[in-house]
């Protein structure tokens, strides 16, 4: 799973959000390291909706502008959970090996 996909799914994990909300949340989640621009965001949302991982929750008009809220679907949540588990396993392995290195366990 590519990083923008992971971050978008993470941004939608707790609650539905609109496009600009996802952008801001992704920036916050990544500690300001990732800026998700509109072109990237909507190309990703287009694919995520096709895959059935994300769906439209509701629409609102704020200051004359359309805001469409997106939510994480059950298949999307399952896929995100699987990715989190995969990353956790990798992180654990990296952590263990670094610790072994520091204690002189490996050459």
């Amino acid at each position, binding site marked *: 799973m590519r990083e923008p996909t992971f971050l978008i799914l993470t941004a939608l994990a707790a609650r539905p959000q609109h496009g600009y909300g996802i*952008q801001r949340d992704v920036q916050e989640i990544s500690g300001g390291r990732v800026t998700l621009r*509109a072109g990237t965001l*909507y190309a990703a949302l287009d*694919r995520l909706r096709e895959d059935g991982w994300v769906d439209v929750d509701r629409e609102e008009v704020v200051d004359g502008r359309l*805001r*469409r809220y997106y939510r994480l679907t059950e298949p999307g949540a399952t896929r995100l959970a699987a990715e989190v588990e995969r990353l956790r396993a990798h992180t654990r392995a990296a952590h263990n090996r670094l610790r072994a290195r520091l204690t002189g366990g490996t050459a």
Partner: protein
Amino acid sequence: MTGLETGYHRLVALYPRDHRERHGEEMLGVLMDGATEHARPGLRETVDLLWGAARLHLRRMVTADGKPTRDVWAAVALLGPLAVLLGAAGALNELRTSSPASLLGPSLSPGAMRWQGSLPDLPVWVVWFVVAVLALFRLRRTAAVGAWLGTVGFLSVPFIAPDPSMRWLALHAGSVVAGVVVAAALTWSPGPARGWELVGAKRFTVFAGVVAATVVLFAIAPGRYHDSVLTSIGSVLLVGVAVAAGGAWSRTGYRAVLMLGLPVVLPVVLLWTLRIDPKTAVLAAGCYGLLAVVVLAVIGTPRARSV
């Protein structure tokens, strides 16, 4: 409307129609919400929007019904190298009528061998043959590297010949277009392993057999291959059989074979339509332009879907 908003409007207008209808207003809202003090869209933002539009156009180019396209590309990754090899028939025809000793002899042009004049594309077809074998053994990454090398090779053919001419590129527009499509499929799709799951051994064998029969028919045809009406018609018919045999199992398969069949067949048809041997530029424009139009028209852009 401010200059900034106008700029965003112009960029969003480049997106596929269905996407604009569904998300255009929403995207403009997001862009304006995130806008700072700029009078015009920034460079990074512009590049990002252009790239996003290109990706969505490409995605829709192979999607007639809005379903995921990865399986189409996976089938293309497996069958594509074979379809590209159809273009090798001319070189094989030339090879059949020339002795190896004469091909390795010196050319009239200083510093060049004779094969560089009569068979400048031979090394490229060897590369594509290797790509087809690698795809058959499901070695996606190696095959992808080979396919990109083969595509660059296609573009280099005019410069291998002692007297560089762009005519080869015009005559082989189908192979070049198919080469780019196959290289992209091998690079970004789930690959030939998934393609094999979808296509199966029996259909792959039928497809490979039809392609091989077409190439052989071209190669043994009397005279130069594109001068023979019979073999051109035979080729189109045989590729039609391949489409039916390879693509009948599902909509995915049909689209995959269609993606590859059209670029390979159309230049042959076009060459016969334009029997008068037009100038290279006209021929190239016809081959590449018509290909693009027909492929886009057949594969289609989906209309807006309700949300």
